[in-house]
């Protein structure tokens, strides 16, 4: 074989290495959402208001509450938009928003500020010394149980990763913030120069995430779709404005839009914050005003009540059905479809009828986990 032939073969070999574009891994944004945005100013929510906010549910779930004898509740999105839920300066107490991915080399994300009141905040007793800043990016993430024996059936399905995004939370005094709100994201880094001219970088960010696996320093962050939160000391900092930076780490692949909910509440985060604090933060990308995406409130409800197997068996495409083990729904079907009549029957039993098990236990239906508009 001549050198010429060898060169042609080599060239072909190189070209075949380009048969994949990898574009599947680049999210394409739906709708018209900014990559960098400034929300404005949020008020500080009281703990009573937080309890009220956490009790909110979307329409279908509110109907279930009423059916069970409770009072109707509004959605978290409507609660935040209600003019009754503002602080003394008229600032909203929470916010739901959406971000598209940024262009190459540009940090994307959202910023907002909150101001420590001039008079000490008080819950009726001692002045409140800290506030808790929370952001929850869409939607829910869980670890699949893959134990070969005694698998945790609740998490037999894997999480569907392409509907999750990630925002990293930073908080610091506004005077140290280096970015231009709404134009360019910055940070809270400053410099100290000692008397011999040595320059040291100083981190003025104060958001130290100290909960569970997120224990660490200012740069520690939670993973995809997990709520991030940190306590900020406000004692003796009356009137001081703080800036919150929500730095886009990853955008969901399915729609290219990262939606989120965020708020600031009194207290040090202990015992008040988790994935279930902000619900309905997965928003419809093609609508300008925040509207929760179909079936995501039910997904969060399932996650918050540790009933992921039930939800995933009823709505397999909301979880990662392609990667689910074949027997992921065996225990679910044993209970809800004892006569092997199919998933529609199981769904009817679970959502509407309830069932009496072989052991004689009466199981109530759980319509709060059932998506009316679900199309598998």
């Amino acid at each position, binding site marked *: 074989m001549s050198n010429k032939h060898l060169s042609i073969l080599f060239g072909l070999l190189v070209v075949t290495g380009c048969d994949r574009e990898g574009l599947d891994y680049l999210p394409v944004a739906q709708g018209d959402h900014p990559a960098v945005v400034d929300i404005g100013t949020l008020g500080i929510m009281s703990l009573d208001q937080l309890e009220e906010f956490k009790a909110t549910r979307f329409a279908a779930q509110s109907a279930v509450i009423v059916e069970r004898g409770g009072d109707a509740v509004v959605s978290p999105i409507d609660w935040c938009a209600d003019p009754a839920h503002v602080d003394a300066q008229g600032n909203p107490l929470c916010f739901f928003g959406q971000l598209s991915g940024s262009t190459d080399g540009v940090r994307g994300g959202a910023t907002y500020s909150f101001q420590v009141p001039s008079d000490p905040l008080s819950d009726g007793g001692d002045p409140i010394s800290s506030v808790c800043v929370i952001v929850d990016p869409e939607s829910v993430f869980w670890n699949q149980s893959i134990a070969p024996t005694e698998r945790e059936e609740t998490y037999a399905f894997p999480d569907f990763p392409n509907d999750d995004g990630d925002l990293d939370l930073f908080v610091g005094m506004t005077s140290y913030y280096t970015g231009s709100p709404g134009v360019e994201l910055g940070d809270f880094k*400053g410099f*100290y120069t*000692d*008397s*011999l*001219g*040595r320059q*040291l970088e*100083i981190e*003025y960010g*104060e958001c130290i995430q100290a909960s569970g696996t997120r224990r660490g320093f200012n740069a520690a962050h939670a993973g995809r779709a997990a709520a991030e939160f940190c306590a900020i*000391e406000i*004692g003796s900092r009356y009137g001081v404005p703080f800036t919150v930076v929500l730095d886009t780490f990853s955008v969901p692949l399915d729609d290219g839009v990262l939606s989120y909910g965020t708020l600031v509440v009194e207290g040090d985060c202990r015992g008040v914050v988790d994935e279930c604090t902000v619900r309905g933060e997965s928003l419809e990308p093609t609508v300008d005003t925040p509207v929760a995406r179909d079936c995501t409130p039910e997904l969060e409800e399932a996650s918050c009540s540790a009933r992921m197997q039930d939800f995933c068996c009823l709505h397999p495409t909301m979880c990662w059905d392609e990667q689910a083990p074949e027997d992921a729904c065996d225990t679910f079907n044993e209970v809800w479809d004892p006569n092997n009549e199919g998933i529609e029957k199981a769904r009817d039993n679970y959502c509407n009828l309830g069932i009496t098990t072989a052991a004689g236990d009466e199981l109530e239906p759980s319509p709060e986990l059932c998506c009316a508009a679900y199309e598998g």
Partner: protein
Amino acid sequence: MRTSTTLLLALLASGCAYSEDALQHFDVRGKVRIPKDMTTITVNDPETGEAYTIENDVRAIGPIWLGVYSGVDDRLFDYPHPEVGPVLGTDNPTGNTYPYGSMSVGRPDWGCYQTMNCKLITGRYSSYDDVIEFFRDEVRDPVINQLGDEVTSGIEYREHCYETGYLTSDQEVGFIGNGGGEPYFEDMGDYFEAETTIYHTLWLEGAVVWGWMDTPSRTFDFSTCQEGDSLGWQVFYYDEQYFTGQVPIDLLNFPSKYIFQGDVVVQDPPVIDDPDKEFTVEINFRYE
């Protein structure tokens, strides 16, 4: 061809011309002096409560903490203190001193018995008997073993160290002699003196060496050694289970958190103009 080879070799050899002297970090060597009158301590007799002094005894010298700093500012406290950066957060009373490097001349060491936690400083004792004698006769608070009995023999002391610490020689016992290479103070007449090296410190022209001696309290304890659950190494030897105490990690960054009245501070910190020249630092200002 011969010329080309020579040129190639010369080119390759030039690759080895990099000198680590370009680094700004040095092992700075020097001497630490402490006047004898600064080593006089007052302790209380545990039995009677009577206060008395221990004088001219190298064993009464507490741990000495040395740092290389950009400078010292006399205006910050009632004693000379390194310059500080901005005050950050609410946990620290001052800003960070951002030391360039640091070293101890004697540090709190595990004393083999729980009763000796945070009592023994390295580089102060020549033998186990020296320890026993000092605590029995000078501090008047004898070494007590795990059974609650007084330790009277150096051989017994050594055996217990070896057994509970899984040791095989005195070289592994930091508080005996210069165990593990610890600097040892020598009697120089009016003062005690020890050699020291501050390893791998950043050096900028004008940097100073500053530090202080943590003077023993009246119960012969040290503010730079903290005791408590989970603090320090855990001894786990049959029914002897305790934590040995530890030195705070930030004591040279925030010295004012650990300096109290009675401690002795460097008043005139030597300037390091040449990192290859030895410095002499004198610890001579008692904070009253």
